[in-house]
C-alpha cells in the first residue's frame, strides 16, 4: 500500500525526475535477513523497503542513497545500476531501539511521551537480595525504596511522593499481566524487565489503582535456536553493618547506682555480657538457580528452578524460598500466538521476635546468659551487688537469649501464579489480545508458647510445682495454628490497531475491557492449650477431640472486591517527531456505594523529538533531544471503608436472669466515600549528547491529591463516637528528578561508565475541609509515648511528621532534662501539656534521595559500584527512648553524664522516669551508603565449548555507610506506615553488610 501511494506520488511528480533511472536493491541485516520498512532517500525522493527488504527508487547512478530505520545505524552509499545489496548494522543508539512496556502494550522508547524508568535484568540481579524492589534502590530517579534486610520482608516503594495518609501506599505490580501487591514470590533471576511507570500520563491506563505508581515486571522467555542452560550460584556471609557500643558491666553499675542513688550494684562485676553478641551470629545465605531455555519454530520455552536459603544474623531465624517457573510461547498459526506463564513459589520461615534486639540493647550486662547451675540469667541483684537467682528484680527486661530459644514458630506459604495470553492478528494492523491471570496463595503457621517453662526461666527461684500452685487455672502451654488462602484473578480483552497513514501519520489505538477480582481471603486461627510436649503428637487422629482445650478459635472471611474496567488509548506520531498520547480508563469498584463506584481517569501526553527537526541536523553534539509532558488523573481505591454494620457487642441483662443480647449501629457511613483522586502535571526532557555517550533526563512534576481520606469526628450529637473516614484532605507532592549517565569505550579492551540520579520531593498536607479530625496517633514506643500525630493542626506539614516535645537541654544545676513549652519557657516533663506543647519536627520520609553508579569493563574483568543516599528524613531512636530504670545505656552516655562534679557533661543526669517523646531522641536520618561493589571475571572460553560462558564474581553489599544516626540503621521501614513505626528504631532488624562469591555458567 505504501509502495502504491509512493508510486502514485512519484507518477505525479514524474516530470521532476525525468532524467532519473530506477535504482533497485535489497536492505538486509547482518544475518542476511531482509529489513522491511527501511527509509531510502536520494536527494528529495524517498522510498521504503517492502516485506523482504527490496526497494526501487528513482535516482541517478552515483547519487548518494541514505538508508535509515529506527534501531539501525544509518547507511549512506552511492547508487549503482546493478541491484544493490545494503547491510544495516543494528544501532548502538539504544534509545532508538529500546522498547518500554506501557501497560496493555509496548512502545519504542523514543516514541514514548511518559516518564517510565526501565531497569534491566542485570541491574536487578547484581545486588544479591531477595526482593527485586530492594535491588533497584537508587537506580531510578523519583523512586524511593525503604527496605529491611529481614528475610522475607517487603520493602516500601514510594513513587514521586506519598499521596495518601490512610489508604494503601503500595504501588500496583503487574507481573506478566497479573495485578498484585507483592512480588516476594518472584525470583529476581527470572525477571527480564522491571519498569516503573511514574507520571500520570503513563499511569492513567491503570485507573483507580494507579495513584501509587505501577511497576510492570516481565519475566523471561525462551530465545535462540538451541537449548541453552544457565546456572547461577552464589554464597555469602552477612553481618550487621553498624553496631551500637553499649556500656560494660562496671560502667552500667556506676550509672545505675547514680540513678538509683544507692549502691545496689557492685562496680567490680564478674560478668560482662554482650547481649547483642549473644543473640546474633554471622549470617549466611546461598542461592542456586538453573534455567533452561530455547526456541524452535513454533515454541519458545523457558524453565527455571531457584532456591534461596538464609540463616539470618538473629539466632534461629531461618528463611528459605524455592521457585519454579515455566514460560512458553506457542505460535499456533501465523496469526495466533499463545503465551503461557506459570510460577510456583514455596517459602518457609522460622521467624523470631525482633524485640530481642531491643531487649539485648536494654538488658544489663551484669546479667549472665546462664547462671552457673544452667538456669537462664535474670535481672535480679543480690546483696553482694552481683546478679543472682534470688535477689531483687532491677528491671523488667527478659533474657533475650531465652526469649529467642523459647520462641517456636514456623510459617510456610505456597504461591501459584500464572496466566494465558492469546494474541490473534485479525487483519494486518489489528490485533486482538485476551489475557487471563490467576494467583493462588496458601499459608500455614504454628506458634508454640511454652508458657510454664517460660515462667520458670524468668523465675529461677521457683520449682515446677509453684506454677501449678500460683496459676491453677492457667495453661501450661499454648499452641496457635493458622491457615490462610485466597485466589485472585483478572481477565482482560483488548484490541490494538496500528497503521501508518500517508507516510507520516503513525496511529496506534488500543481499546479493551478488564475485570479484576480479589477473592475472599479466608483465615482460620485456633489456639489450643496444654498440648503434648512432643510436637509429633500435637495433632492426633482418631477420637481425639480438642474442644475442651480450645482457648480461641477464629474463622474469618474477608470481603471480596471486584473491579470492572474499560480502557482506551490513542497514540499518534507525526513525522517521527510530534507525539501525542491520550488515554482513558473507566473503572467500577465493588468497594464503593452504588452511586459512587464508577470513575473516569483521563490522561494525555505530548512529545517532541527535537533532534528530528531539520534545523537540528547540523547540531552534531546533540544526538537526541526529546521534550515531553502530560497530565492525568489517577485513583487510589485501596482506602479505608466504613461498611456500615450492626454492632452486637452491647449485651445487657434485663430483669431476672435472662441475658438479653443488644444490637445497634454505632458507625456513621459516608455514602459518597470512594477512591482518592490524584492529578499530576509533568514535563520532562530526555537527551543524548556527544555520540550518545552522555545520556540523561530531567523531570518536573506537580501532583495533587485533592480528596484525601482522613478520619473525621462525627458531630457529637450524632451519638457516633467511631471515627468516620471522609474525603477531607489535600496532599501535594512537587518535585524534580535528574538522571545522567556517561558511557565511553576507550578501546576494545576498556569501557567505563559513571552515572547518577537525584530526586527531590516536597510532600505536604496542604488543605483540610471544614471538619474536625479524630486525632490519629502513631509511632508508639510501648511505654505510653507516641511520636507521630495527624489532626487538624497537621495542615502544612509533610505526611509522617513526628509530633513531639522540643528538648531544651538539661538544667546544669541539677542535670534534669528540660523542654520548651508553648510559651517558649524551659520546663521539666511533669509541667508539659500534651495538648499545646508538642511540635512538628520533621517527617520520617526523606525530602530527597540520590543514587550513583560507576564501573568499567577491562578485558575479561568487570567492576561496578552503586551508592545510595537520602536527605531530610528524621529518625527516632525508639530503643533508647524506651530505656527505663535499671536498663543498660550506651557507652557514650555511661562515661559522660551530669553529676554535681561534671556540670558541663554532654548528657543529662541519670533518671528513672519514663522520658516523654522529645527531640532528644530525634536524629537526622541522612545517610550515604555503598549498596554494592561487584568485581567479575569472565573466563576466556571459546563460545563453541561445552561451557559457552563462565563468569565468576565477588560482591560486597552495603560495605560502607556514612550516617548521622547513632543507632544501628537510619533506613527504617518498620511496618511501612508513615504513621506507624516507619522511621522509628524499635524492634528493628539491622541493615546488613554481605560478602558474596558466585558464578554464572552458560552451556
Amino acid at each position, binding site marked *: 500500500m505504501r509502495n502504491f501511494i509512493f508510486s502514485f506520488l512519484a507518477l505525479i511528480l514524474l516530470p521532476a525526475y525525468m532524467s532519473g533511472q530506477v535504482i533497485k536493491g535489497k536492505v538486509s541485516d547482518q544475518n542476511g535477513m531482509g529489513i522491511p520498512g527501511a527509509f531510502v532517500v536520494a536527494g528529495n525522493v524517498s522510498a521504503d523497503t517492502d516485506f523482504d527488504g527490496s526497494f526501487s527508487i528513482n535516482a541517478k547512478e552515483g547519487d548518494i542513497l541514505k538508508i535509515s530505520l529506527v534501531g539501525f545505524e544509518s547507511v549512506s552509499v552511492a547508487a549503482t545500476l546493478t541491484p544493490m545489496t545494503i547491510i544495516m548494522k543494528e544501532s548502538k543508539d539504544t534509545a532508538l531501539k529500546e522498547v518500554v512496556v506501557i501497560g496493555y502494550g509496548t512502545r519504542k522508547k523514543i516514541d514514548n511521551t511518559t516518564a517510565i524508568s526501565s531497569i534491566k535484568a542485570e541491574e536487578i540481579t547484581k545486588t544479591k537480595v531477595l526482593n527485586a524492589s530492594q535491588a533497584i534502590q537508587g537506580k531510578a530517579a523519583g523512586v524511593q525504596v525503604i527496605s529491611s534486610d529481614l528475610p522475607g520482608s517487603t520493602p516500601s516503594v514510594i513513587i514521586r511522593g506519598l499521596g495518601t495518609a490512610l489508604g494503601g501506599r503500595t504501588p500496583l505490580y503487574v507481573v506478566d499481566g497479573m495485578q498484585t501487591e507483592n512480588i516476594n514470590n518472584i525470583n529476581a533471576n527470572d525477571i527480564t524487565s522491571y519498569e516503573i511507570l511514574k507520571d500520570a500520563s503513563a499511569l492513567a491506563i491503570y485507573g483507580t489503582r494507579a495513584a501509587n505508581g505501577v511497576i510492570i515486571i516481565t519475566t523471561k522467555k525462551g530465545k535462540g535456536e538451541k537449548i541453552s542452560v544457565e546456572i547461577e550460584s552464589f554464597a555469602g556471609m552477612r553481618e550487621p553493618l553498624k553496631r551500637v557500643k553499649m556500656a560494660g558491666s562496671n560502667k552500667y553499675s556506676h550509672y545505675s547506682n547514680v540513678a538509683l542513688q544507692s549502691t545496689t550494684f557492685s562496680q567490680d562485676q564478674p560478668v560482662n555480657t554482650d547481649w547483642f553478641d549473644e543473640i546474633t551470629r554471622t549470617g549466611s545465605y546461598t542461592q542456586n538457580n538453573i534455567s533452561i531455555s530455547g526456541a524452535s519454530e513454533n515454541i519458545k520455552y523457558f524453565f527455571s528452578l531457584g532456591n534461596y536459603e538464609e540463616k539470618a544474623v538473629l539466632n534461629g531465624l531461618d528463611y528459605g524460598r524455592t521457585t519454579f517457573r515455566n514460560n512458553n510461547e506457542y505460535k499456533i498459526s501465523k496469526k495466533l500466538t499463545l503465551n503461557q506463564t506459570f510460577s510456583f513459589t514455596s517459602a518457609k520461615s522460622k521467624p523470631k521476635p525482633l524485640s530481642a534486639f531491643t531487649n539485648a540493647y536494654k538488658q544489663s550486662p551484669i546479667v549472665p546468659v546462664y547462671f552457673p547451675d544452667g538456669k537462664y540469667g535474670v535481672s535480679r541483684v543480690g546483696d553482694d551487688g552481683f546478679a543472682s537467682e534470688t535477689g531483687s528484680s532491677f528491671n523488667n527486661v527478659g533474657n533475650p537469649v531465652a526469649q529467642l530459644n523459647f520462641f517456636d514458630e514456623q510459617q510456610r506459604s505456597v504461591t501459584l501464579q500464572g496466566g494465558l495470553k492469546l494474541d490473534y492478528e485479525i487483519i494486518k494492523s489489528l490485533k486482538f489480545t485476551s489475557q487471563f491471570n490467576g494467583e493462588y496463595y496458601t499459608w500455614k503457621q504454628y506458634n508454640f508458647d511454652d508458657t510454664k517453662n517460660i515462667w520458670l526461666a524468668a523465675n529461677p527461684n521457683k520449682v515446677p510445682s509453684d506454677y501449678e500452685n500460683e496459676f491453677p487455672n492457667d495453661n501450661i502451654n499454648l499452641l496457635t495454628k493458622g491457615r490462610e488462602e485466597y485466589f485472585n484473578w483478572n481477565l482482560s480483552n483488548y484490541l490494538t490497531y496500528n497503521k501508518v497513514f500517508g507516510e507520516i501519520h503513525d496511529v496506534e489505538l488500543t481499546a479493551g475491557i478488564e475485570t479484576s477480582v480479589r477473592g475472599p481471603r479466608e483465615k482460620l486461627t485456633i489456639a489450643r492449650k496444654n498440648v503434648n510436649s512432643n510436637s509429633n503428637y500435637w495433632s492426633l487422629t482418631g477420637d481425639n477431640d480438642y474442644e475442651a482445650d480450645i482457648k480461641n478459635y477464629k474463622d474469618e472471611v474477608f470481603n471480596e472486591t471486584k473491579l470492572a474496567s474499560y480502557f482506551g488509548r490513542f497514540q499518534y506520531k507525526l513525522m517521527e517527531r510530534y507525539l501525542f498520547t491520550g488515554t482513558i480508563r473507566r473503572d467500577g469498584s465493588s468497594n464503593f456505594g452504588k452511586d459512587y463506584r464508577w470513575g473516569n481517569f483521563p490522561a494525555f501526553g505530548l512529545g517532541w523529538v527535537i533532534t528530528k527537526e531539520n534545523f537540528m541536523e547540523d547540531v552534531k553534539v546533540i544526538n537526541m533531544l526529546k521534550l515531553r509532558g502530560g497530565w492525568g488523573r489517577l485513583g487510589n481505591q485501596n482506602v479505608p471503608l466504613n461498611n456500615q454494620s450492626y454492632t452486637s457487642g452491647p449485651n445487657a441483662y434485663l*430483669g431476672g436472669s435472662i441475658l438479653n443480647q443488644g444490637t445497634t449501629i454505632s458507625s456513621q457511613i459516608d455514602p459518597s466515600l470512594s477512591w482518592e483522586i490524584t492529578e499530576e502535571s509533568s514535563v520532562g526532557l530526555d537527551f543524548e549528547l556527544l555520540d550518545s555517550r552522555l545520556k540523561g533526563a530531567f523531570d518536573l512534576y506537580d501532583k495533587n491529591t485533592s480528596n484525601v481520606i482522613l478520619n473525621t469526628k462525627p458531630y457529637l450529637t450524632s451519638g457516633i463516637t467511631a471515627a468516620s473516614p471522609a474525603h477531607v484532605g489535600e496532599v501535594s507532592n512537587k518535585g524534580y528528578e535528574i538522571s545522567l549517565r556517561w558511557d565511553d569505550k576507550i578501546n576494545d579492551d576498556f569501557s567505563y561508565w559513571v552515572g547518577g540520579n537525584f530526586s527531590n520531593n516536597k510532600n505536604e498536607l496542604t488543605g483540610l475541609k471544614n471538619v474536625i479530625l479524630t486525632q490519629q496517633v502513631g509511632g508508639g514506643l510501648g511505654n505510653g509515648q507516641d511520636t507521630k500525630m495527624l489532626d487538624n493542626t497537621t495542615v502544612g506539614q509533610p505526611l509522617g511528621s513526628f509530633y513531639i516535645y522540643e528538648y531544651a537541654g538539661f538544667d546544669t544545676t541539677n542535670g534534669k532534662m528540660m523542654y520548651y513549652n508553648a510559651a517558649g519557657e524551659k520546663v521539666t516533663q511533669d509541667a508539659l501539656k500534651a495538648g499545646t506543647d508538642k511540635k512538628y519536627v520533621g517527617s520520617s520520609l526523606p525530602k530527597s534521595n540520590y543514587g550513583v553508579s560507576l564501573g568499567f569493563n577491562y578485558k575479561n574483568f568487570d567492576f561496578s559500584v552503586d551508592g545510595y543516599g537520602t536527605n531530610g528524613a528524621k529518625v527516632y531512636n525508639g530503643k533508647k527512648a524506651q530505656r527505663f530504670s535499671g536498663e543498660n545505656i550506651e557507652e557514650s552516655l555511661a562515661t559522660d553524664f551530669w553529676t554535681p562534679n561534671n556540670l558541663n557533661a554532654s548528657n543529662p543526669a541519670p533518671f528513672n522516669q519514663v522520658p516523654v517523646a522529645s527531640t532528644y531522641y530525634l536524629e537526622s536520618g541522612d545517610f550515604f551508603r555503598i549498596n554494592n561493589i561487584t568485581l567479575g571475571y569472565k573466563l576466556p572460553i571459546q563460545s563453541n565449548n561445552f561451557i559457552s560462558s563462565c563468569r565468576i564474581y565477588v560482591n560486597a553489599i552495603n560495605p560502607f555507610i556514612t550516617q548521622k544516626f547513632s543507632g544501628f540503621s537510619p533506613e527504617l521501614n518498620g511496618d511501612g506506615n508513615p504513621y506507624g513505626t516507619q522511621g522509628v528504631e524499635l524492634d528493628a532488624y539491622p541493615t546488613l553488610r554481605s560478602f558474596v562469591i558466585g558464578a554464572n555458567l552458560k552451556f
Partner: protein
Amino acid sequence: MKKIYIATFVFSTFFFAGCADDYLDVDQTESISTKDTELYNNDAGAAQFVTAIYNKFLNWDMTSFGWIGLSSITSDDADKGSSPGDTGTDKDVLDALTYNASNPSAESTFIANYDGINRCNQALNIIPKLDKADPNLRARLIGEAKFLRAFMYFTLVKCYGGVPIVDHLPVPGSDSDRIMQLTRKTSAEVYAFIESDLNEAIAALPDKSAYSVNERSRASKGAAYALLAKVSLYQENWQKVIDNCNKVTGYSIVSDYASMFKATGKFDSESIFEIYAYGADPVKGIEGYSNTQGARGTGGWGWGFNTPSQSLVNAYEAGDVRKAATIIFRGQTLYDGRLVPNTVENERYNYKAYSSAYTNAWETDVDIKYLRYAEVLLMKAEALNELGQTSEAIPFLNQIRNRAGLGNTTAVSQTDVRIAIWKERRVEMAFEHDRFFDLVRTGQAKAAFEVDGKVFTEGKNELFPIPALFINQAGGLSQQNPGY
C-alpha cells in the same frame, strides 16, 4: 475465526455494559451489613435494638464517674472525697464549682446521652420495618425507646439547657440534618419534645405488673407518667404534676427505707424506674459505680469519691433512719457484718453505692433507682402546696416523714411547707443524682452553696458547659452557655 473473536469481544463489551453494575454488587463478609435487616425480623431481633439502649445506662460515661461528678459531687450533699491529691480528673473543680468549658465530665455526659439517643433513633428507625415481629411487641418496644429517649433528653436539658433535638437518624450529607445536629433548641422546645415522646410512650407501654419477672426493668406506663410529672415539675406546671402523679398507680412506699438499696430490694413496690445491675457471672453492672465510691485506703475497697458532706449529715433530723441508710461512717459495722475500719481515708462514704456481695468488683449488683413512688408523693405535695392547697399537701409529706421514723411536720404556712418539702426531697433522695438539679430548679442553689462554703454564680452555674468540641463543630450555629 476472526469473526468469532470480534463477536466475543463485542459480546463481552455488551455484557459489561449491561451487567457490570450487578457484577460489582459484592456482599460483605467481615461484618453484618445493615442491609441485612431480615436477620432481625423476628421478636427477639426487634427486642435487641431496645436492649442496646438500656445497656447504655450501664456504661462508664453514661452513669458512672463523670455522671457522679456532675450530678452529685457538685451538690452540697457530697464532697469530692478520695485522697486530697487525687483529683479524679476533674472532680476537684466540680466539687468547687470552678470548672471551665473544657470539663471532661460535662463532655463525657453530653456524648454518652447522645450515644444513647442514637441507639433510640436506631431502634425507632428499624423496629417499624421488622414486619415479622409481633405488632404488639413492636408497639411496646417503640414506647420503651421513646421513654428512654425522653429520659436522656431530660438529663441533657437539666445539665445543659436547650440542646439540639436529634429526633431521627441523620442522613450524612443532608444539610437540614446537619443543621438539626448542630443547632441548639430552647429549653422549652426540648421539654415539649420530651413530653411528646412521653405521651407516645404512655399510649404504648404496659403497666409494670404486666411485665414478667425477668423483664421488670423495662419502662412501664407508670414510669412514663412519673417522668412526665417530674418534667412538669421542672416547668412548674403544677396542675400537670398532680394529674400525672395521680396516674402513677399500683405502687406504694415500702416500710423499710434501707431495704431499697440492698440487693433484696430490687423492683420492690416503690420502684418505678430502675437501672438494673446483675453482679453474678456473667457480670453486667454499672461500670465502676460501686468501686469509684467505695471506701478508700487500708481496709477499704474503692476509690473513695463522692463522700457525704457535713452539710448533708446536718440536714438529717434526729431519729431519721435515712441517715444511717445513706451514709457509711468509718468505724461502723455494715448491715452485712463488714467492719469499715478507721484506717480508711474519708470519714463518710455513700451507702447507696455499696454492694454486699460484690464489694470491690468493677461491675456489681448495685442498681440506681431513678424514679421512686416516694418522689411521686413529694412532687404531688409540692404541686398541691404551690397551688395553694397546702393542707392537702401536708399528709403526703408526713407519709414520707413517718416512714423515716419522724413525726409529722410542724410547718403550716405555704412558705414553710414549701421549704419542708424541699428539705424532705434532699434527705429522702440523697445520692440519687437529684440534688444539684433540685437546687437549681428551686432557686436555693446560691444560698445552699454558701452554707457549704462554695460560690454558686447565678447566671452561670445553673448549667454545665456544652463541650467545646461541639461548639467548634457547630461553627456558629450554636453558642456556649453563659459564663463559660
